[in-house]
């Protein structure tokens, strides 16, 4: 996901990379594509993978619609399509240039809307002289759908009790400012890539596709929101946990499958290039590792819930798939397959144990987004040095803390500012009636009679 300097490396220094691997392969290099072919394939990678990531918005929507009660299902659908749209507008208006307009080693980018600029390639420029070798719109689109993913994480945690418009105001601030500023520190070549950072902590921060930048960021914002908002009415009455079973587990399962599919675009597309044979090989490795981590997350969550609860808990197993995927996202390329399996399996363990712990703390996370995205995001980022020798544990830890403190503190301040001004919580009466009737004036399933 890191552009400019790293893009140049990926596209142009592939000769050097291939020399290393070729040393074992009879000193031959893979044949090179023409500049035009590389440009087109790089662009196609962004566009196709971006479309798949866009569909993750549908995955989140179905997962959340299945895990809320029927009386709030239509509202969560509206929030999901609205947050995607708000993210699109904000990333165009300010987000993109906040991410990529940052100075080297800097903290904050430019407040400037995005416009496409493809003049260099159109006027006969070549890859060797280019800043970037793909259509600018394809990259904008790919970045935009990532921002939407972080916003999707928030809606699930806060479901069934947050008012629609305050939620969308927060979404605009998250997607326009909070996410872009912290993402610039890493993917824009900002502070987490600064020379002093590397000197002080042994390496640059490393987050390939966004375990921290996307998933933990969404998770921190969700956690801050859950604290400001409080639990759903009746959830923890009498010191006990009162479950509110979801309205449709098949829908939740479909949503999880869609997210899993989308993750191939999320991680695979983050290779950022498909113009060389080595890039094609790397994207394929990423697909395999991403898949194995999710498989391991599902199996470990299934076994653990069977052992702990004597029954397999489907919704925790679904969280296990997401947990495995988030865990591998910080480094989906370098691990051997067995390492991916291990990394993903730990993700399944984390969600299984974190779900009841959050309930003990009375933090009401309707869909389990905080365990799956925040905690597994931290785990996935910490474990990068296991397979990537260029990363350091200390550098990973410092980056996690910097981004965590920034996102959580700003989010918490914004949530409380909204709470004290417009209010963020639906009235008790509205919550009992269900937000579908009070916010939208309709029902998600009008022909189902509720007894």
């Amino acid at each position, binding site marked *: 996901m890191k552009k400019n300097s790293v893009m140049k490396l990926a596209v142009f220094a592939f000769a050097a990379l291939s020399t290393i691997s070729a040393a074992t392969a009879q000193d031959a290099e893979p044949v090179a594509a023409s500049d035009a072919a590389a440009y087109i394939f790089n662009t196609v990678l962004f566009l196709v993978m971006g479309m798949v990531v866009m569909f993750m918005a549908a995955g989140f929507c179905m997962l959340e619609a299945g895990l809320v009660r029927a009386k709030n299902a239509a509202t969560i659908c509206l929030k999901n399509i609205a947050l995607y749209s708000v993210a699109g507008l904000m990333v165009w208006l300010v987000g993109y240039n906040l991410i990529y307009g940052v100075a080297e080693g800097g903290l904050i980018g430019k407040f400037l809307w995005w416009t496409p600029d493809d003049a260099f390639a159109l006027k006969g420029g070549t890859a060797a002289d280019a800043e970037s070798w793909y259509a600018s719109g394809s990259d904008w689109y790919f970045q935009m759908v990532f921002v939407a993913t972080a916003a999707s994480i928030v809606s699930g945690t806060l479901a069934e009790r947050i008012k629609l418009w305050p939620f969308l105001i927060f979404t605009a601030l998250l997607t326009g400012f909070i996410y872009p500023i912290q993402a610039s520190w890493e993917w824009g070549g900002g502070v987490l890539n600064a020379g002093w950072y590397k000197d002080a902590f042994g390496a640059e921060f490393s987050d390939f596709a966004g375990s921290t930048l996307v998933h933990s960021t969404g998770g921190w914002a969700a956690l801050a929101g859950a604290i400001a908002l409080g639990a759903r009415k009746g959830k923890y009455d009498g010191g006990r946990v009162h479950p509110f079973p979801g309205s449709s587990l098949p829908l939740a399962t479909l949503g999880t499958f869609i997210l899993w599919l989308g993750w191939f675009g999320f991680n695979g597309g983050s290779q950022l290039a498909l113009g060389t044979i080595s890039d094609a090989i790397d994207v394929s490795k990423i697909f395999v590792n991403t898949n194995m981590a999710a498989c391991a997350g599902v199996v470990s969550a299934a076994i653990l819930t069977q052992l*702990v609860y004597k029954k397999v808990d489907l919704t925790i197993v679904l969280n296990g798939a997401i947990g495995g995927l988030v865990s591998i996202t910080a480094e989906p390329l370098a691990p051997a397959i067995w390492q991916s399996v291990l990394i993903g399996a730990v993700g399944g363990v984390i969600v299984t144990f974190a*779900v009841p712990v959050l*309930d003990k703390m009375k933090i009401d996370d309707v869909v389990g987004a905080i365990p799956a995205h925040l905690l597994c995001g931290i785990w996935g980022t910490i474990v990068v040095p296991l397979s990537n020798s260029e990363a350091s544990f200390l550098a990973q830890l410092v980056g996690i803390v910097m981004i965590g403190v920034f996102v959580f503190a700003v989010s918490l301040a914004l949530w409380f500012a909204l709470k004290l001004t417009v209010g963020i919580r639906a009235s008790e009466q509205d919550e009992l009636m269900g937000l579908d009737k009070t916010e939208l004036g309709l029902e998600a399933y009008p022909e189902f009679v509720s*007894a």
Partner: protein
Amino acid sequence: MQMKYIIAIVKPQKLDDIRDALTRTGVNGMTVSDVKGFGRQKGHTEVYRGAEYTVDFVPKVKLEVAVESSQAAAVVDAIRVAAKTDRIGDGKIFVLELSEAVRIRTGETGAAAL
């Protein structure tokens, strides 16, 4: 002519067996509704996302049949045999006196309306 009104609360999955048994007994009409409730079974527990909770009201089917008094014992017996699984929660049968019945279309009354 004396009539009885028989109400049976039974397990939903036994409904087809009961209907067949009653048809064989000569009953030619019944009313069925989906209901919830509890008796000595007192609900059961389920687990959702690591937390146990009690489902107090168990889904049941309520069956209502009006018959001539002479038929009542056979009908009760047919329901009891067909609904029985020997497990807790098999349900109950109630028999009430029925003072009148009217067929709306023709205006017939009493046993002729059944």
